[in-house]
C-alpha cells in the first residue's frame, strides 16, 4: 500500500527522525492557518501517489501569506499524471546546505533488507543508480541482528567525514531501519535528507510503501488509505477476492490465476487483439465470484467480447460454468462469450454450458480462444 508523504513522515516522527514543522490542508484557508502556525516562508507540496510532482508545478515556495493562498489554490485540484490533488502539505522552508539520500528496501535477490545511501539526494535515485552507480552505497542487513550501530556508522562515513555529522546520519539510519521494521514496510526512504545551513538534519521528503500482507497487524493504517478512482475499483475487486486491473483494449478476460491471466493478455496481443483488463478470479470455486468478475468487466464500456480462460485445478469447471450461466442471465449480458474450460470437472462444466441455451463459443485451447475473442470483438461498436 502506498501512503502519502505526510503519512510517511508521521511514521518517521514516531521513531524520532526529525522532520520540519508541517501540517496538511485541503483548502487555501486551511493552508494559510497552517502557514501562520509554522511561520513563513513555507513549502507547499501536492500529496499524490506518483513521483515527479515538482516538475509539473506541484511544489511551491511561498514567502508571503498571499503566496500561500495563491499556490494552495493552484495546487489543490491540480491534475498530476491523471491524479487530482486533494491534499497539500505545508512545511517549514529549510535553508539547504546539502541533500542526502537514505533508504531501506526489501531486496528480492538476497531475501534481506538493503540500506542504500547517497550524497546525491533530492533527485530521482533510480537515475543516479543508472548514471553513477558508484555514488550509491549499499549494505545488506542481516535480519537476525538488524542494522548494527557500527554498520550505520560505516555507511555514514561514506556520506561525510565529519564525525558529528556521521553520528547524526548513523542514528537516523538506525531509526529509518526501525521505522521500516515496525511499520512492516517494503520501502522506507528519506529523499532528501537535508543538512540545513544552521547545522541540523531534516527528513524533507519521505516515502513509505507498506506490505499489504502485514496490514492485519496494523489496523490503524487502514485510515491512511487514499485511493484514486482506478485504485478504488481495484480495491473493491480485491475485497471480493478478485484481482482486477483495467486496460485500454476491448476483449474482457476472466481467468483463474495471475500467471495465466497475464498470459491470456499476452496471447490476445500476440494474435493482434487488445485485452480490456487483467482479471484473476483466484483459486476458489465460488460461483458468486464469476458474477462479481463480470460486473467489474462491464464497468468498462469498451469491452466488445468476453473470454473465459479457466484451467481447473482447485477451481472446478462446473462451478465456473454455473456461475457464468446465472450471471449472464442476471446481468443481461449480450456481448459475445468465448469460453475455454479445461481441467477439474471439465465435462460437467461443458455440459452445463451446452444445456444452458446461451450463445457461447466453446474453445479448447488458448490460441483458439484468443483468435475467437478477437474475431467476435471486431466490427462491434
Amino acid at each position: 500500500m502506498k501512503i502519502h508523504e505526510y503519512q510517511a513522515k508521521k511514521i518517521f516522527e514516531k521513531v524520532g527522525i526529525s522532520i520540519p514543522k508541517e501540517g496538511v490542508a485541503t483548502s487555501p484557508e486551511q493552508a494559510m492557518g497552517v502557514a501562520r502556525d509554522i511561520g513563513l516562508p513555507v513549502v507547499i507540496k501536492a500529496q499524490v501517489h506518483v513521483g515527479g510532482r515538482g516538475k509539473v508545478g506541484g511544489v511551491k515556495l511561498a514567502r508571503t501569506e498571499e503566496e500561500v493562498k495563491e499556490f494552495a489554490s493552484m495546487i489543490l485540484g491540480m491534475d498530476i499524471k491523471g491524479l487530482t490533488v486533494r491534499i497539500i502539505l505545508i512545511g517549514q522552508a529549510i535553508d539547504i546546505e546539502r541533500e542526502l539520500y537514505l533508504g531501506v528496501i526489501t531486496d528480492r535477490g538476497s531475501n534481506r533488507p538493503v540500506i542504500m545511501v547517497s550524497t546525491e539526494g533530492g533527485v530521482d535515485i533510480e537515475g543516479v543508480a543508472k548514471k553513477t552507480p558508484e555514488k550509491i552505497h549499499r549494505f545488506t542487513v542481516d535480519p537476525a541482528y538488524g542494522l548494527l550501530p557500527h554498520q550505520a556508522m560505516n555507511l555514514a562515513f561514506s556520506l561525510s567525514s565529519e564525525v558529528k555529522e556521521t553520528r547524526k546520519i548513523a542514528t537516523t539510519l538506525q531509526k529509518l531501519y526501525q521505522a521500516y521494521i515496525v511499520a512492516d514496510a517494503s520501502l522506507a526512504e528519506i529523499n532528501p535528507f537535508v543538512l540545513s545551513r544552521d547545522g541540523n538534519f531534516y527528513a524533507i521528503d519521505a516515502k513509505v510503501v507498506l506490505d499489504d500482507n502485514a496490514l492485519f497487524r496494523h489496523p490503524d493504517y487502514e485510515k491512511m488509505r487514499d485511493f484514486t478512482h482506478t485504485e478504488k475499483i481495484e480495491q473493491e475487486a480485491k475485497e471480493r477476492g478478485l484481482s482486477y486491473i483495467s486496460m485500454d483494449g476491448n476483449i474482457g478476460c476472466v481467468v483463474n490465476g495471475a500467471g495465466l491471466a497475464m498470459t491470456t493478455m499476452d496471447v490476445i496481443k500476440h494474435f493482434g487483439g487488445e485485452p480490456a483488463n487483467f482479471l484473476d478470479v483466484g483459486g476458489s470455486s465460488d460461483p458468486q465470484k464469476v458474477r462479481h468478475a463480470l460486473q467489474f468487466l462491464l464497468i468498462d464500456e469498451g469491452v466488445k467480447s468476453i473470454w473465459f480462460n479457466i484451467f481447473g485445478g482447485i477451481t472446478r469447471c462446473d462451478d465456473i460454468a454455473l456461475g457464468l450461466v446465472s450471471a449472464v442471465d442476471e446481468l443481461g449480458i449480450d456481448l459475445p462469450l468465448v469460453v475455454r474450460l479445461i481441467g477439474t470437472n471439465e465435462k460437467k462444466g461443458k455440459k452445463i454450458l451446452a444445456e444452458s441455451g446461451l450463445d457461447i463459443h466453446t474453445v479448447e485451447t488458448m490460441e483458439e480462444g484468443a483468435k475467437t475473442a478477437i474475431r467476435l470483438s471486431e466490427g462491434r461498436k
Partner: protein
Amino acid sequence: MGVLVSKDSRVLVQGITGRDGSFHTKLMKEYGTNIVAGVTPGKGGEMFEGIPVFNTVVEAVDETGADVSVIFVPARFASSAIFEAVDARIKLIVAITEGIPVKDMVSIMRFAEDKGSRVIGPNCPGIITPGECKVGILPASIFKKGRVGVVSRSGTLTYEIVSHITAAGFGQSTALGIGGDPVIGTRFVDLLELFRDDQQTEAVVLIGEIGGSDEEDAARYIKETNYPLPVFSFIAGRTAPKGKRMGHAGAIISGSSGTAQSKIESLKEIGVKVAKIPSEIGRFLKEEFDAG
C-alpha cells in the same frame, strides 16, 4: 528419481484439520503421497483419515520421522508454523499459504539458512514428482512421469504449460511452483542446480513472469556454469503495465526493472528458446528430442 520429493518422502501436513489442509490431504493421499503425520495444536492424539495428528511439529518428527512438511496454516499463523518446521529440522518445507508478511519471510529465510532447511514458496501450488509424490495443490491428472523438469513462478500457468508438455508426449521428472511473493525460499537457480544433478531430468522448462530478476539470474547461471541441459522458457506479462501489481506481490514492474522484455532478452542472449505462447513449449521439446 526427480528432485526434492520422491516415494521415500515422509510428509507432514501442518494445519491438517483446516479447510484447505483437510481437503488436499485427502487428494495427496489418493495420489499416493506418503503422509505420515499432521499437526494442529490442541488436536494432538486424534486421527485424521488414518493419519496421526500431533500438537507440535517436534513431536510429529520424533514419532514419525517426517522429513517434508506442507503448510496449509492461515496467513496470520503461517510464519510461526514455518519457523516451527525449520526448528524441528524438517529438511523441505512447502508453504502453500498466501498472504504471509514479507518481513516474516525474511526472518524465516535467515532461520532456515541457520538450520539447513529448504523452503518452497510461500504462495505456491507445491511440488510433484509424477508417479511418486505430490505435495501441495497441483491437479494430479495433467502430470505424467518423464524427463522434463518444470519450475514456475506461477500456479495455473504451470498447469497450462505442463498440459502442453504432456500433450507433446513428454512427462515430467519433477514440476513445481516456487511462489509469487517477493521473498521466496527457493529460486530458479536452485532448481536448475538440482535438475542438473538429477539422472532423470533431460531438459528444463522455466516459467517466469514480470517482477524481480530471477529470470535474469537464471540466465547468468546457465551461462556461467555452461549448463549442460537444454532449457526452454515462457515469460508471462509482456503486455503488463508498469507499476501495477498483477495479482500477487511479486509480479510488478517497478521502475525500469522486472520487465518481461528484459527477462526474455537475457534468456535469448544465452541461447535459451523462449516461447511466445504456451503451446510453443511442446513444439520446442519435440524439436529438441526428435532431432537428438
